[in-house]
């Protein structure tokens, strides 16, 4: 199994989620993060005190998938999250040794 971590632009979240539901992904976990990269944050000014916010709001989406689904999920996310402008974000794939559904105790593939 693999754990796919996607860092995407916040307003793309619904689009990505709907695209993933379309290819049978029933569950995922989302968290608000802030990213630092080529995309520069806005300059904010408070009574003359200028702050260039280096950290830009992003959404982190984590999806545990079976090995067969990895390619399909990666492509779907890349396609749905893409705007072509700097800061579209990243996709990371890590190996997932075990998985378990707390409610039923099902493990690995059944747990996803």
């Amino acid at each position, binding site marked *: 199994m693999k754990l796919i971590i996607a860092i995407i632009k916040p307003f793309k979240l619904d689009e990505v989620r709907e695209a993933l539901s379309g290819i049978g992904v029933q569950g995922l976990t989302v968290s608000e993060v802030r990213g630092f990269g080529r995309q520069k944050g806005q300059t904010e*000014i*408070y*009574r*003359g005190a200028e*702050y260039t*916010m280096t950290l830009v709001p992003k959404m982190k989406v984590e999806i545990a998938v079976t090995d067969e689904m990895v390619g399909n999920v990666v492509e779907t996310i890349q396609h749905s999250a893409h705007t072509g402008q700097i800061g579209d974000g990243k996709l990371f794939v890590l190996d997932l040794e075990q998985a378990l559904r707390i409610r039923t105790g099902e493990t690995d593939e059944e747990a996803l």
Partner: protein
Amino acid sequence: MILVRKTWARLGAAALAASVAAPAFAAAPAIDKGDTAWMLTSSLLVLMMIVPGLALFYGGLARTKNMLSVMTQVGAVAALTMIIWVGWGYTESFGDNGNAVIADFGKAFLRGVTPATFNPLATTIPEYVYCCFQMTFAAITIALVLGSVVERIKFSAVMVFGAVWLTIVYFPIAHMVWAGNGYFASKGALDFAGGTVVHINSGVSALVACLILGKRIGYPKEPMPPHSLTMTGIGTGLLWVGWFGFNAGSAVAANGVAGLAMINTFVATASAGLVWMLAERVSGHKGSALGFCSGIVAGLVAVTPAAGNSGPLGAIVLGAVAAVICFLAVTKLKPRLGYDDALDTFGVHGIGGMIGAIVLGAVASVVCYLAVTMMKPRLGYDDALDTFGVHGIGGMIGALGTGIVNDAMFGGPANGGKTIAAQVLVQVETVAATIVWAAIGTVISIYIAKVLTGLRVSSDVEREGLDLGEHGERAYNM
């Protein structure tokens, strides 16, 4: 006539407004229910300016970890002032006899004050009401001083500093500028609602205090954006609404002068708010919400000394064009000038009239904007919430400007009874004395606090936030 001419600002305005014919002193003081209703309302409006007004304005500008510390220090120092005020504050400032600097202590703990007694400075409202009204002025002045030293000063230090500062700075200055036998009052200084007594006083004291306390850890490199400009917005709204209690209340009556003070407080403030945003656009930035709020406060501060003394304000710095228009209007009406029919001449210069209030607000806004955005960074002192930049500078513009706009030439009530030059001279003298007195008094008060309680919280507490460190609470558990 001589006696009447030398009358001091506030009583003059009140007397003039109340009954042009009968001089105020002859008539035995008698309660006027309308005036009393308005002064009861004004007193609670100025309390609203402190809690929750100023507590939110300042609190929103601070970081999340210090929100409760700012709100509690503002609230607690106001509460402390109230106890001290009925203790010895009222009698020291507005008691009977005494000298040019302070009154005697005959009315300590309001001895001799009953629902049926009157203060000579307000002969149509019960003394208790006048006492409450002036109490709230003292409370907001010390609360304003805290603005420059928040996020690092100890709560205990604020209490000690407040008690000493009120006794040796605020009460004497209030007496000197407002009480009948006050030094500056006798010299005809005009300060309708506290340009010098409240704003220059708090602004200068704030500057001195923050120089002694030193900068916050991380200032100016570490970003310290306001944690909630929404709270600052609520504070700005409540300050503006409450300020009518401050300015229109200072007419000490529900009359025409109160109306005049109200319209000036609307117009000068509105213009200052918009002009601050314009100043930001002119210097290449986006017009900001905080800019609008800061402009509103700068305008309120500037109009405070002029509110009831300005009559429809004349143009201060209007540029060649406007000056010409006013000049033509003035020469036609000059012969009708005269102190005794002051009330009629009030509105004679309509054309210059409202423009004056608008321009006063605009000028104050631009100068405060430059002080806050240019002067502070260059000089590098950490006046955290710009108390000096807004209240100190704004107060000075208002106080000096009053000297000019009070003259009949600009439609003012000329109740100072002097030529422009003489009036401005008195204003400058009063402002200078206030600056020196406030500075020295603050140094003394700060060092007493330093000895008794120590001034700054430890660096750990400052980093973790005074809410947890000093009060053991978080502002938000959302």
